[in-house]
């Protein structure tokens, strides 16, 4: 039984392995013809995470996954979609993790609340220290 399972695992793994060697999607390594659209796409790609890599945006990665995502971004921008709509589409598919731009939510609010508090605190410290006369 165990052997059978192992065999099954191998058979199932074959298509996965083959997927890695499939030719990259057309727009993975190709720019859009319209330079303005390409600039928009590029800016967006720099803020999307390659979820198979460590801390790289999809604009900075050779991973096949990143290539597929670049392709998606480019064709959607070329079709006239707004960058934020593309981002939302990708986030719906891959989760919030895919976007380097954190969105305010129940879990991420401290990321947005702490910097203003820091700014206030910094102002307060400077003010308090400097208010006292020499």
């Amino acid at each position, binding site marked *: 039984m165990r052997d059978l399972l192992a065999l099954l695992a191998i058979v199932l793994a074959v298509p996965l392995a083959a997927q890695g060697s499939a*030719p*990259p999607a057309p727009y993975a*390594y*190709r*720019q859009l013809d319209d330079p303005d659209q390409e600039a928009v796409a*590029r800016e967006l790609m*720099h*803020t999307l*995470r390659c979820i198979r890599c*460590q*801390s*790289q*945006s999809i*604009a*900075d*990665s*050779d991973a096949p996954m990143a290539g597929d995502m670049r392709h998606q971004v480019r064709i959607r921008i070329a079709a006239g979609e707004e960058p934020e709509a593309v981002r939302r589409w990708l986030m719906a598919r891959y*989760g*919030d*993790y*895919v*976007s*380097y*731009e*954190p969105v305010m939510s129940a*879990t*991420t609010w*401290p*990321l947005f609340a*702490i*910097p203003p508090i*820091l*700014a206030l*605190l*910094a102002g307060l*410290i*400077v003010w308090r*220290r*400097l208010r*006292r*006369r*020499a």
Partner: protein
Amino acid sequence: MIAELGLAALWLAAALAVLQLVGGALALRGGTESELAALTRPAAVLQGGLVALSFAMLLWVFAITDLSVKLVAMNSHSAKPLIFKLSGAWGNHEGSMLLWVTVMALAGALIAGIERRLPERTMQATLAAQGFVALGFYAFLLLSSNPFERLPQPAAEGLGLNPLLQDIGLAFHPPTLYIGYVGLSVAFSFAVGALITREVTPAFARAMRPWILGAWVFLTLGLVAGSYWAYYELGWGGYWFWDPVENAALMPWLAATALLHSAGVLASRDALRVWTIMLGVVAFSMSMLGTFLVRSGVLTSVHAFAVDPERGSFILLLLTLYIGGALLLFALRAGAISEGERFSVASREGALVVNNVMLSAILAVVLLGTLYPLLTEAFDVRVSVGPPYFNPVGAIFAFPMLAVMAVGPLLRWRRDSWGRISKELALVAAMLLAGIVLFAVLGEIALLPLLGLAFAVALAVASFLPLKGRRLKRVPIATWGMITAHFGIAVMLFGMASEGAFSQERLAALEEGGTTSVGPWAVRLEAVEPVAGPNWTALAGRLTVRHRDGDPQAIAPQSRNFWAPPQQTTESVLVTRWNGQLYAVMGGSSTDGRWQVRLWWKPFVTLIWYGGLLIALGGVLALVGRVRSDLKHRYISRRITERREERETA
């Protein structure tokens, strides 16, 4: 035998760290005259020698590829060039931790050997603290990361080193960064020592300052080198990714920069006592936190080498013990240390306080953005915090800091008025406005790069203003250091802003003989040829590139395949001109027989690293200036005592 010698030396060194701790502690209780106290300094010096010996033994087993040593078998390969065999010694977890304690022990030996300015009690407390911290890392190394472990059977061949790490950069980047990282342990021990004896004085700050400067210079160089390495090796033209590992090195740098400036205030003006001590504790805490993040496997990256939860909890334990202990001591003692001298808003101290607060706020933002995703992951929520967060949020604090940095050095200590420097203020403000208008007219540039360019120009001019009205020959070397470093910041800022504002990208699929262009460059793919190296094969694209009407140049970027371990890397080629770099990368082949070529034209990008080098050079000048004037003072005071004695005997 060699490996066992290394291990024995390490155990002996750990024993000496215990002696150092006990000796220092007894000296504090029983006075500095006790016999054990006399052993503290020699123990620290000998310890440095033993750990250096141990590290040399590790280099030796890597040099001869002794495959009976587990670490060598796991991380090296007989076919590697010698330089990469040696640098491979610290391209793994155990070796890099040994490098860490080596630097730490050598730093301890150095303060024990040459530091004579501190009061003896504070010195003993400092050495005891240094021994205590070192002890934890010896324990970590000996109990859970023994680099000299033998295999029951020697391996037939080594597994090889990650090809990304087979680069000359790896020979220098980790040692440089570690000297900076761990060099901060000296500042930490000084701070703890001063907290124990409650002697926070200008003399203490003057003694501590060269050590901070030294560590800071190496930290700067390490960051600059690491950034350039990422830029040319990763093959996509990015130089800073806000990767947690990068942040782990940036945070100690930010803290050390703040510490440097506040120690300056303490040394010159006897103000900011508590703040300086606090930063001394924080700086090395950030180093340890960085080590935890990188080494524990919390993050997986090219830096993490091997993931082992047991080691992670060990480092976490050390982290809690040392940071928690130091902060507790700080909380208990801070009240006993008075605030020091007062000063007014418009004064050098005032500006430095703003600088310190802003640097700390940036540090807090980086810390938050780095740790927050780890925190949410513990609750199974994955978020990414990246450049779109760090850049604008950091900028909120960075730009006010830069503005203060431009005018702060013009102010006098203690009390000054804005009116006295109104001309200079007007000049800097005018430069800034002119810069913003000029660059805004020049083209469509995003807000941050635009501000960056304008601030860089204004700052470059402002950094030389302290020289106004002074005779250049009489300006102290340390002041030249400050000017160089501040100018370096301007240069680096210009490079970063220019890269952000003016970079051009071209991804092309070319046949042999096909042409394309990027920015002012015309590029032609002549041919694609196979190349073989000692442990890799590659496809090299022979490209002819030409800048406007200049001479054509031949370059050959490669796409390399390593076989031990199997991995693909890109070897990009950079063509450097005075006004920027052409960045060329060879990709794979597409289905129709054409070749992927990636090209970037990055105007003034090299200024990022030249600026970084200037910052480090400024640190070196400051260090030389401080040490020289210190030696001079010592010489003069010695002469005075000699004279007095002569007169008394006469």
